[in-house]
């Protein structure tokens, strides 16, 4: 093998050890959550809970997926919340990307008065976190009659500049000659966008999709405020509502089952699209 010192045998063993410790710490909370999701709540309430999976798993998952917590009163069935989260994450991801790709295209491939102004206006959206403007945003959404709609849930979150910046960056790296070749071939701006830019941006789009999907899926404060109809509850909000509330004790077994179900889809998206995701993440921030 390679003779460089980091690739020596003891070096390899050390590296494996470090990684395995890392994986253990990464996995521990997930494992405990999994075990809890297979126990009954009294089992958990009698601390310490067992560290080996119990036999309530099927029942717990059935309960949360089909019925929802406490017969669907406290939270709708998980399948519905998952569906809501999915819609929200998809709309946000696809929306952000579509809006961003055309605006990045405009900023990069055209010169026009106000170009830099527009760019900065978009860029500014990167600077301020949601917490800062949540109440007035809420008012705007209400004035537009978008409370309790997917539009209200998603539109305000489409106003972000990460995607625009990344795509702009990428567009800037497309060789000038490609544009010129297309011009010589007689392609106009829209045709060039459709025939050349879009296909070439596929990798970036896939990466952005993952990032934005996770972003959308993990939204917390905004859906907490904007949705008053339980049937629109997203899963992350649903979970947070379930713990430490009122005079009830938390049904940790169900909460953990729900939690695992909640992190499964974004984790799957990240894993399945890993190749693009890492590239996109690293590109987008550089």
């Amino acid at each position: 093998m390679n003779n460089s010192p980091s690739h020596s045998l003891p070096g390899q063993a050390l590296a494996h050890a470090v990684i395995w410790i890392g994986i253990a710490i990464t996995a521990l909370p997930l494992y405990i959550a999994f075990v809890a999701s297979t126990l009954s709540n009294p089992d958990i309430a009698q601390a310490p809970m067992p560290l080996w999976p119990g036999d309530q798993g099927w029942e717990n998952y059935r309960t949360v997926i089909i019925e929802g917590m406490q017969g669907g009163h406290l939270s709708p069935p998980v399948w519905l919340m998952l569906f809501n989260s999915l819609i929200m994450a998809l709309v946000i991801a696809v929306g952000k990307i579509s809006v961003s790709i055309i605006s990045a295209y405009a900023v990069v491939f055209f010169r026009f008065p106000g170009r830099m102004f527009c760019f900065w206006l978009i860029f500014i959206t990167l600077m301020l976190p949601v917490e800062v403007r949540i109440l007035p945003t809420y008012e705007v959404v209400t004035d537009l009659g978008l409370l309790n709609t997917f539009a209200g849930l998603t539109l305000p979150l489409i106003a972000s500049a990460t995607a625009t910046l990344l795509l702009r960056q990428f567009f800037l790296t497309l060789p000038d000659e490609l544009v010129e070749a297309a011009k010589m071939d007689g392609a106009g701006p829209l045709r060039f966008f459709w025939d050349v830019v879009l296909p070439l941006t596929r990798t970036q789009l896939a990466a952005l999709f993952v990032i934005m999907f996770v972003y959308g899926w993990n939204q917390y404060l905004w859906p907490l405020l904007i949705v008053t109809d339980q049937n629109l509850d997203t899963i992350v909000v649903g979970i947070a509502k379930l713990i430490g509330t009122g005079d009830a004790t938390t049904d940790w077994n169900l909460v953990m089952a729900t939690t695992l179900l909640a992190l499964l889809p974004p984790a799957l998206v990240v894993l399945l699209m890993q190749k693009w995701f890492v590239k996109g993440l690293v590109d987008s921030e550089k």
Partner: protein
Amino acid sequence: MQRKVIFPNRWLPYALLAPQLVVTLIFFIWPSLQALMMAFQEQDPFGLSVRFVWFDNFVMVLTDPEYYNTLVRTLVFATAVTLLAMVPALLLALAADALLRARSAYTTALMIPYAIAPAIAGVLWLFMFNPAIGVVAHTLQVLGLDWNPTLDGNDAMLLVIMASAWKQVAYNFLFFLAGLQSIPRSLLEAAAIDGAGPWRRFRTIVFPLLSPTTFFLLVVGLVYAFFDTFGVIHAVTAGGPATDTTTLVYKVYTDGMIALDLGGSAAQSVLLMLMVIGLTTLQFRFLERRVHYS
């Protein structure tokens, strides 16, 4: 930076920009201006009476010692989260980079927490460390450690720091690994020929060359610790015990949403905005420098 080759067209660029601009203006710029306005007003929670009070809200915030306590606490928290998320990430990245085989499998396993919402990460850690039912909390108690985040501010702080850092390690890891892999092998080989051992190579070559990545992650980490940890704190400690885990953002939230001091909360928001703008500017200054560097 701009392209040399462009398309000539008068209206098309505006049409393409329109959706983004509209969304930005309606859902971002406008509400932000509103928030700014609220910082100069005093109003009751229901918005039934509104009074313009100039800088009163700012004066109140800035003369409240608790605000400075929170500021210091936030800095401590942010520094701890950032470091705790970066050092292990760097170690893991070094290990992964050194591996000849199974690197991608390991990478996959390590990046899962990226996909997990902060609020959910908080729930997971709360569940392990809850003094009443948590497995780890129980173990600590058996070991004779008096673990009680509901009362001990340090325990609580440690808990939110760990939960927050845990989630962020994945992110830092991916960047460090990318950074390491972009260091030309030949540089390390040159150093090896020059006689540098592994530790010396790390100290004098690898770490300096990673410094752009490190700095970037530092800024991102600080921003994360400042803002995105809201969900963690909300789920784990709700800012307590006392105010021992209340960060600036959490204070904006509690003062505004729970205590319903809208003006004071808005004033704090504005101060926060200024800090974010500062951080972002810093980052972009640096980014520019880095463009020159390469």
